[in-house]
């Protein structure tokens, strides 16, 4: 794991890292991934699940309720004239 790879991963994750951070994380991740290569010795399997228990679909009738008052949500979100504010899409 070199600094360039960490930089690439950090960009994907929207993290801006200092040079010192890049170096530190490169060394840490190298250590961690080397230890994790023990998984290469683990037997693979044909099948796998995304969770530890089986989840089944449970259906119910639709019911109109107010879950959370919208005005409370707008307050928490710091809206301006009821608009959620965000950056320019440029």
């Amino acid at each position: 794991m070199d600094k360039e790879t960490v930089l690439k991963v950090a960009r994907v994750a929207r993290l801006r890292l200092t040079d010192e951070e890049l170096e530190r994380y490169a060394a840490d991740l190298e250590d961690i991934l080397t230890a994790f290569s023990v998984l290469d010795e683990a037997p693979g399997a044909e099948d796998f699940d995304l969770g530890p228990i089986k989840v089944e679909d449970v259906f119910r009738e639709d019911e109109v309720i107010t879950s959370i008052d919208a005005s409370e949500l707008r307050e928490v979100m710091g809206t301006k004239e009821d608009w959620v504010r965000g950056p320019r899409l440029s």
Partner: protein
Amino acid sequence: MSFFPSAAWLKELDEKHQLFTERLEDPLAFEGGQFHFSAKDNLCARDFQARAGSLILKGYRPPFDATPIKRLRENGGLLLGKTNMDEYGFGSFSTNSAYGIPRNPFDIERCCGGSSGGAAATASLIRDHVALGVSTGGSISCPSSFCGVVGLTPTYGRVSRWGLIDYGNSLDKVGLISRTVRDIEQYLPVIAGPDHRDPTSQVQPPLDLRGEVRTVGVPEEARTGLSPEVAGAFEEALRDLQRSGIVVREVRMPSLRFAISTYYILATSEASTNLARYCGMRFGAMNENFDQGFNDFFSDTRSRDFGTEAKRRILLGTFSRMVGFRNKYYVKALQVRKQIIRDYQKVMEDCDVVLTPTMPFVAPRFDEIERMKPLEMYQADYLTCPPNLTGMPHLSIPCGYAHGMPIGMQAVAPHWQEGTLLSFARSWEGSFHYRFPEVAE
């Protein structure tokens, strides 16, 4: 960084604590089935901030109660406050919080364990208190062991996660920490049960508090790497169990050696996607610099307000899911998790529970933690990661003391059999003498 407390700040702190102790000491406040509880700070509750130990959530006040909190409040529970934790649950010592570090009530130079460290310390300090904890890879067992209390991590899906700030969705479980099994037995039925807002809670069979333990399986793999104090206390506990008529069977679980890698790959993969939502918009730390392009806008807040360990786990998880590495890490870890579940199920054909020490050592001192490398910290979880990967219920209970510090053992039962664990703990509690921190007595 130096810190000079202002008089106003000290006064505020003093008043806050006074309110807290007055509440606890007022016998009238808890008449008629009322009780007090606390909640780990990644569970949302009205009237409190929910920061999950992270600066990026500073100031966030959820306008709703998480289901477990709602159910406790509806049943006479008074929420005293939120407990400190490692940022998003990322840690085994509660040293990764942006809001200070909780200290172990048995020795303030030592950690509480993590990531529900504040919850375990609170449960240890306050009599008849029940603390809501959350475990992804051992965050209830570990601090319970270090703080000398009982911690139950229910089956994955037993308790609704609605209102929980996610870490790893296929791993997160809400549970209970308290001084005794009695309290846990009392409040588990309150928080358990289906909730239409969490689909994983919909498939559970009814909770049955009964159970019986005749045989415990002790994996050979869990007896290595222990400190002499923990090994001694655990072997003594096994002898006590045998004297009480329980059969102790040695078993082999070869897949346990893959648990750490499997856990950290799955947990960080899931965390790195969950944490994508924290970007300076909508809640918590808000970026007001709207003229920026969105990449810069998001990166600003995330780079400034995520802590060191959060960034490390985001990087690890993002890498594990990237094209070219996904099959080697993420998909392989999913396959290995299934194998670990099968290993437990096989042992459970002949044993009622799988029993190990909870942590390989007693609560470490802060100077020891400072010298540990990230990988060493991860590896300390080799006894708590396996049951968490399987989604099976497990319980940590004090089994001994060394130099004044508590030591815990951890029992794991088949899916949905919380009753088996509670019955085991009840019978252990009947003959074991608990110690509580002097400061609390």
